[in-house]
């Protein structure tokens, strides 16, 4: 198994290199340079020019790339053009919020998806299954942002059950008060995102159960006289959960890239919102850093998927 994991990680190295090159050129395409953030009314143009030269902005592109990469490894992602603070600290604040949102979304997703998938699979073609299928069909077909809008309109404004923006109430005080307020702010967006991310898991689980039900090993178990419930939990479910386990990584990756829309609708101060704000303000150094982070996280999410798959499914392992 370690061989599989090691090989999978080795495959990621060229992907990371290409990603870094891609982001570097994307950054080059954007107007501005690392010193745009330093420009103030008192900046001497000549001094700035000297600084630029010193920083190697007039060097050949490969040299610049090497320099950029070196800074990257030192954890230096540049300085925000607009906020005039290091990009890393800007992102770190927001990353915490996005992390909590993603975590709670993931928990809700699995808590909802597994019972739904199991119900649909067990009661194949009965009304329970059909209801789940309709739910699944709608969440698959409609673009996610429509749900966010309808959700915030219904539960946020009309019913007033949940706050409509921010990550914490300004009046919240004390440790538990703050945590409570944060969770209160996360619940609605997390539920809405979970609504969409359940779709594929429910579908996988249902198909897995339906397919496994008619496999010979299940028939064998039945004919040996194993009780139905035991056959289901020990044989069918266990095998049908394999693809779900592996979807974990891609769910995480999907949440991160989808965070933009939901954070924008709920004005939730996470990385996605930061990304949209930065692009609105043309804060290109922050943007570059965020794309790189999104890219690396997506790669890691997929890596995680494959590794989990190789752990739970012995067929994938390399001999």
């Amino acid at each position, binding site marked *: 198994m370690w061989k599989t994991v090691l*090989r999978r990680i080795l495959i990621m190295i060229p992907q990371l290199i290409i990603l870094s090159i891609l982001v570097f050129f994307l950054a080059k395409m954007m107007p501005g340079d690392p010193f745009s953030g330093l420009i103030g009314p008192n900046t001497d143009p000549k001094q700035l020019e000297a600084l630029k030269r010193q920083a190697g902005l007039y060097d050949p592109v490969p040299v610049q790339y090497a320099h950029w990469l070196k800074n990257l490894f030192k954890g230096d992602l540049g300085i925000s053009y607009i906020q005039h603070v290091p990009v890393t600290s800007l992102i770190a604040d927001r990353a915490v919020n996005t992390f909590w949102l993603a975590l709670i979304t993931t928990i809700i997703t699995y808590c909802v998806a597994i019972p739904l998938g199991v119900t649909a699979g067990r009661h194949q073609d009965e009304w329970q299954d059909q209801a789940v299928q309709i739910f699944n069909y709608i969440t698959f077909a409609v673009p996610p942002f429509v749900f966010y809008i309808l959700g915030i309109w219904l539960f946020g404004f009309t019913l007033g059950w949940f706050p409509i923006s921010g990550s914490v109430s300004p009046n919240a005080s004390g440790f538990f008060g703050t945590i409570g307020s944060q969770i209160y702010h996360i619940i609605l967006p997390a539920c809405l995102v979970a609504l969409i991310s359940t779709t594929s898991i429910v579908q996988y689980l249902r198909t897995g159960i339906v397919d496994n039900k008619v496999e010979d090993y299940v028939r064998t178990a039945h004919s040996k006289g194993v009780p139905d419930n035991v056959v289901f939990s020990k044989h069918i479910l266990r095998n049908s959960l394999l693809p779900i386990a592996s979807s974990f990584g891609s769910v995480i990756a999907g949440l991160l890239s989808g965070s933009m829309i939901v954070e924008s609708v709920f004005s939730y101060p996470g990385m996605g919102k930061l990304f949209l704000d930065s692009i609105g303000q043309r804060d290109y150094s922050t943007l570059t850093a965020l794309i790189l982070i999104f890219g690396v996280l997506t790669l890691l999410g997929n890596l995680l998927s494959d590794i989990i798959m190789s752990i739970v499914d012995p067929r994938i392992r*390399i*001999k």
Partner: protein
Amino acid sequence: MAKEIIQVKNLKVHYPIRSGFWNRVTDYVRAVDDVSITINEGETYGLIGESGSGKSTTGKAIVGVEPITSGQIIYQGVNITTAKNRRKLNYNKDVQMIFQDSMSSLNPRKRIEDIIAEPIRNFENLTTDQERERVQELLDIVGMPSDSLYKYPHEFSGGQRQRIGVARAVATNPRLIVADEPTSALDLSVQAQVLNFMKHIQQQYDIAYLFISHDLGVVKHMSENLAIMHRGRLVEIGSRDDIYNHPMHIYTKRLLSAIPLVDVEHREENKKHRQEVEQEFQNDQSKWYDDKGRVYPLQQVSGKHWVALPKDELKQEEIKEKGRD
């Protein structure tokens, strides 16, 4: 002595097996290993073996749809194992193929007319009318009604489809047709029918067949010369008489004993014979196969008769044969 039409020399088709951390080639599947056969003009040459013995791969290599590892296939003095040489000769105009599974060998989305006309369009310049006439004529030869032209493959039975496959193979007046188990997917009664059409066409147009089969019974009625294949290698080649009446290799004997006989009076005798052959095979593995389980190189017994045995074993076998006679 008939003139040879095609010569296969030391043909090898190996598939790499990759494994290990770097996915390197660690071994090969020797699908076809050092096979040499010569087919004469207008004859039917039988190539027999069990499934997985490499007989179909050999056939596909001869037609030029299977990339080969090494060896030569000589047609009209040219080695046709490269695509360039095949194109230069218009090789597939002369060498065609009939496939085992008639359903999958006919494109379900094409009309019979387009299917049969495909090689004609590629190799000959005919007007639309001439082409249609030719297709009609071909359908006639294989005994299909002329309204078949506008139908699709799934509208026919297995036997009819195989006859359409025959018509397509004959379309360009080829000199050699590789028939890859053309009847093994058909009912017995239909098998005979398709075989008869094939024989009839052979006589009429002087076509050579490489008849690939796992069934020595069927081949007996078709072929003058035969080659027996096992584990990618030839175990025995010879004339019909050599193979059926004087088999030397245990594998040939096993295949022969497996032909079902309708011979009630000698039932017990036949059964005993089968058991003897099986016994011989079980006891003397090392005599017939080398330590890696591979077949030995061929040794000449007489004129056309070659068998895969070590030299000293060969002598003993010959003595045994003579003693029996």
